[in-house]
């Protein structure tokens, strides 16, 4: 780098640039949180959804699955599993049967543990996944397989 560009100038670009862009980031964050009620389906958060989210966290579901594309890549995406596995008509029955059938014990197949949830808990989990699937997330994923 040329001698006329001094360390002091570089330092000022660092401080000025990062403060400037951090302020823009904060402003956009403020705007985004104002916009989110239109998209994040928060009006449908019930106590059941809330309990479902706690169960989701308490059993470390994110350790194998993705949810809206984030998590581990070992097991299927669950952000849209509500639509993929039966929707309004069949999802709750599907999930109840699925959770109780674990572990499948198919030799060589990836194993999902049995988390010993009762019917009420499985219902709460289903409500959480249903609520999540009804968020407006700009059209992701590209197809039903997640």
């Amino acid at each position: 780098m040329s001698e006329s560009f001094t360390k002091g100038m570089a330092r000022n670009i660092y401080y000025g640039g990062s403060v400037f862009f951090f302020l823009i980031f904060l402003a956009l964050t403020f705007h985004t949180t104002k916009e989110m009620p239109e998209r994040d389906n928060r009006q449908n958060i019930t106590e059941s959804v809330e309990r479902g989210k706690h169960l989701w966290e308490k059993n470390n579901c994110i350790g194998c699955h993705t949810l809206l594309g984030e998590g581990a890549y070992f097991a299927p995406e669950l952000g849209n599993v509500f639509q993929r596995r039966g929707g309004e008509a069949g999802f709750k029955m599907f999930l109840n049967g699925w959770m109780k059938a674990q572990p499948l014990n198919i030799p060589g197949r990836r194993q999902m543990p049995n988390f010993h949830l009762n019917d009420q808990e499985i219902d709460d989990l289903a409500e959480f996944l249903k609520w999540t699937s009804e968020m407006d997330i700009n059209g992701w994923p590209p197809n039903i397989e997640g």
Partner: protein
Amino acid sequence: MNTLKYQSQAVAKPYFVFALILFVGQILFGLIMGLQYVVGDFLGGAIPFNVARMVHTNLLIVWLLFGFMGSAYYLVPEEAETELYSPKLAIILFWVFAAAGVATILGYLLVPYSTLADFTFNELWPTMGREFLEQPTITKLGIVVVCLGFLFNLGMTILKGRKTAINMVLMTGLIGLAVFFLFAFYNPTNLALDKYFWWFVVHLWVEGVWELIMGAILAYVLIKITGVDREVIEKWLYVIIAMALISGILGTGHHFYWLATPEYWQWVGSIFSAIEPLPFFAMVLYAFNMVNRRRREHPNKAATLWALGTAVMAFLGAGVWGFLHTLAPVNFYTHGSQITAAHGHMAFYGAYAMIVMTIISFAMPKLRGIGEANCNRAQVREMWGFWLMTVSMVFITLFLTGAGVLQVWLQRLPESGEALSFMATQDKLAIFYWMREVAGVFFLLGLIAYISSFWVKEKAQA
């Protein structure tokens, strides 16, 4: 033989040693998970995948934190030209952090996660069960306490000593690390908000303040091994971290494409994260430039190799592999696929694992009283470790990228009805996962070579 400029730098040694022990653990659990990808029921009853993954990623985070802390305790006194404010505090905090870390990992391994949550009163302030932030709330509080004590100790040291650019940048990075970690305590029911602010920890760490830490450590080692004028190196440091923050802060937007957020993030995130490779490219130019302009022949060739290697691998892993899937129209298809895993592996290894091993390579001979550098035989062994691990990581990344491309092709690109299901797709990727596992075994061999280099001595003269 005493080879330290400031005696209190010695507190760095347990931090480095413990970091490397955890690193070995991380790799062992990585191999278990890699095998579970293809032999699904391997150890399924004893160590379910979610547990192995949690141990793998948490060990990574914790060993890097130990590495950063060790680096700071080593370089801050020398830069400030004064002894550390309180070596005793540093050692107490080492034991607190090590005990909390070991207890948490044992908790993951010995009891079901839900039992650990109950046992640690997660329901009082639920913060568990989110990717990378799986630690019990009490452990998170412990991390905050350790960070505060650590920052206090360093801050007092810098206050009474010389304030170099390297010290100030390192300190800014470490304070940022502590401040952004506080978002780990915010866990609203609304998943969209939860995820939005979760990225304030995850993204603003690895694509923000950690880059300051990496830049400062690299600058310090380059000054020491090349003897190039501090003014020149610090000027480069400012330019690089300026680019890193100017691109990386708004680059956070690349996580807000598909998250109940306004569409403008697709533009903001794409444009700014497209610039994110630049600071890493500048780091490559700078590291090679400084080594070529060196004014002394430092006997520690291995440290020089690590310094050049971390710059190159960070550019490839964080820069190139990050850019590969960061543009919104591409990310629509690759989000949450094996492409993400490929990028994550090379970026963390290249930028953060390697920078910690750079300073360990430089500092350990002095901390152990050997002198400026290890004997030639030990350095050759260490360089074997470098090349085996680095080349293996390149292959791990290539195989995961292959898996990811095929996954996108089979599962994401076709229409609903035509696309293969997730599990059916995974079966088709098995060959890539097997090759990744083989590359992982070679990585472990490299790690063994690297660790064993600490015991290699010069052959006795006949």
